[in-house]
């Protein structure tokens, strides 16, 4: 019997096989840190008199707390300032490379790794952050860890772990125009549920996945955690190699050839067996949005707000009823009728250059709906610079959007970018939990295309809603 991609990656990083029920010891190729989950880990090292074993496999960036305005001024919020200064001090003391606010390589940790060419196929990647699953798009085993584990990796460059189960997500067919990777993953989560992936590595396969760009694949893998999974994976192919080649840390010459030769072996064997398989037809998908307070509560944009009675399970009925109350929604209302106060384009899910380009193409030459705010936050400073070089900042500013510095921003509202109570947002981020974007805020997760069209009309919309009458709406 053959092996799955996840099993191959595990095998290739096995330092010690655990015996008698003890966990395996797995080697970590890349450890990324940010200011929120690392302070106690560094403190733990200091208390035990330990060093960072491999500073050359470690990198830090500031993202969760960073302001997106006036980044040259001192950070006003005390907690944020302390966390960021602590990271800077720790990086200095332990010799860890850091990209601070104002640096061209600063940004959301999951945007920065791939952009520098530090994320590659065949690696193990960890970070004290659940959306580390993003890096699985390269065919790397990438997963989030807790603070004790951060300390463990800093001290030993390994982790004691029990092997994950494997699940194949087969996305067949072709995506229709106007549907994106975001719609695929939201549909997957709606199908298997927010707990459906628990304990699994999800391997996304099939024609529709193969056709995606590298950045779109990152969007898919990013939200694996929203299905409860440990990690997401996509086997590397020419698209992957093309993306990595020439990046600052990409191998060169003979190293490149050796790497590609190995990377080509990183596929699930034809006769391998997954613990579970799920099928999805991409051609049936349309733009998908969430209506509730977890990412599994999603529907096609053409649908109406469901009633709790539509659900078979008692627990789902209760969850739906609670979500509707929190979201201030009435069953039967078409999703397209919902007025949106704030549109947020950004985050490690959809804050990359392709996302900005796609949204800019839609808003170019139009004007923003008067009562809707549009916040554009590039995923990294490099993405921002690239967008400015292409003139996208002008397109957004002319449209009426706010153009910001890079960071997590309104994805989790740890900085000043927050929703007010009962404000409704269409957000390209990954979590619509109660209060995630600000206390009492109401989040609808959407793709960048839906975000842009919504900013034009002021109600949840897809680009199709604009096609015939852009001028009339101005």
């Amino acid at each position: 019997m053959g092996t799955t991609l996840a099993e191959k990656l595990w095998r290739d990083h096995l330092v010690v096989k655990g015996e008698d029920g003890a966990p395996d010891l797995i080697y970590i190729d890349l450890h990324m840190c940010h200011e929120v989950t690392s302070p106690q880990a560094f403190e733990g090292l200091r208390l035990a008199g330990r060093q960072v074993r491999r500073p050359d496999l470690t990198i830090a960036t500031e993202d969760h707390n960073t302001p997106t305005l006036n980044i040259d001024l001192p950070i006003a919020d005390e907690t944020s300032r302390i966390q960021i200064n602590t990271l800077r001090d720790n990086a200095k003391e332990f010799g860890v490379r850091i990209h601070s606010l104002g640096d061209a390589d600063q940004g959301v940790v999951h945007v920065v790794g791939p952009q520098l060419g530090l994320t590659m196929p065949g690696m193990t990647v960890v970070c004290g952050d659940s959306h580390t699953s993003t890096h699985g798009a390269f065919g790397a085993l990438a997963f989030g860890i807790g603070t004790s584990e951060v300390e463990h990796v800093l001290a030993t460059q390994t982790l004691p772990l029990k092997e994950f189960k494997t699940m194949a997500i087969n996305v067949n067919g072709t995506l229709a125009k106007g549907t994106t990777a975001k719609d695929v993953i939201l549909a997957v989560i709606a199908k298997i549920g927010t707990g459906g992936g628990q304990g699994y590595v999800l391997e996304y396969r099939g024609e529709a996945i193969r056709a995606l760009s590298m950045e779109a694949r990152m969007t898919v893998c990013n939200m694996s955690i929203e299905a409860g999974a440990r990690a997401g994976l996509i086997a590397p192919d020419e698209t992957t190699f093309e993306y990595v080649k020439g990046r600052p840390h990409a191998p060169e010459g003979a190293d490149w050839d050796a790497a590609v030769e190995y990377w080509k072996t990183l596929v699930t064997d034809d006769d391998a067996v997954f613990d579970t398989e799920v099928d999805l037809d991409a051609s049936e998908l349309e733009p998908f949005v969430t209506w509730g307070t977890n990412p599994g509560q999603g529907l096609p944009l053409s649908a109406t707000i469901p009633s709790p009675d539509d659900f078979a399970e008692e627990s789902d009925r209760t969850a739906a009823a609670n979500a509707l109350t929190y979201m201030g929604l009435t069953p039967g209302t078409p999703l397209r009728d919902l007025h949106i106060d704030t549109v947020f384009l950004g985050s490690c899910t959809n804050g990359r250059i392709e996302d900005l380009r796609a949204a800019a193409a839609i808003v170019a030459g139009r004007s923003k709906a008067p009562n809707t705010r549009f916040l554009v936050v590039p995923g990294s400073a490099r993405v921002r610079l690239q967008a400015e070089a292409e003139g996208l900042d002008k397109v957004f500013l002319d449209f009426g959007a706010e153009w910001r510095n890079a960071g997590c921003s309104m994805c989790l509202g740890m900085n000043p970018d927050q929703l007010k109570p009962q404000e409704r947002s269409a957000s390209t981020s990954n979590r619509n939990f109660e209060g995630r974007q600000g206390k009492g805020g109401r989040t609808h997760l959407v793709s960048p295309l839906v975000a842009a069209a919504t900013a034009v009309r002021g109600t949840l919309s897809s680009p199709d809603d604009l096609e015939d009458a852009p001028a009339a709406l101005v």
Partner: protein
Amino acid sequence: MEKITTHTGVGVPLRRSNVDTDQIIPAVYLKRVTRTGFEDALFAAWRGDADFVLNQPEYANGSVLVAGPDFGTGSSREHAVWALKDYGFTVVLASRFADIFRGNSGKQGLVTGIVSQENIELLWKMLDAEPGKQITVSLEDRTVTCGELTVPFEIDDYVRWRLMEGLDDISLTLKREEDITAFEATRDAWRPTTLPAKTEPKQQVVAARPAQ
């Protein structure tokens, strides 16, 4: 982590069940960036009550907490264990613990011994009769002794061994350091390092300003 074979210290009766991690340490203390100094946060909500057991002078040096069933339920925050340790507790005894709390405790060198509720009641009685009385906990014999009374406790074999050897997860892994070094020697040349840092040409990032 320090080796523990036996521990003797003042027993503190906590006559409450279902003490969750929010009660052990409220969420507001999670914003801190330090690993130590959480002693003031332990049971913060109850500390204001003059009658609370930890506010009694006899228990000032308490190090063995004798608690009601289902101790440590709720969120998985590791801070709960740090707070108990920082305050000076080495042992918590209860008839039932939440799994994650017990797992975190074992990793951080806090002994969690399972004692039948019947015996917990006996311990409470003895401590009430003579506040400040000492309790001896022997990991070797798996017994708790308070005056004339000696009762058994349960603890996972693997956790007990680690506590007696004074091994946390990291020290355990470091015992395999040779294996790690040997593995590192086999890593492919193409695998990237973050140092020396490589990047695109440096560019200036202009601060965005609030819209006028």
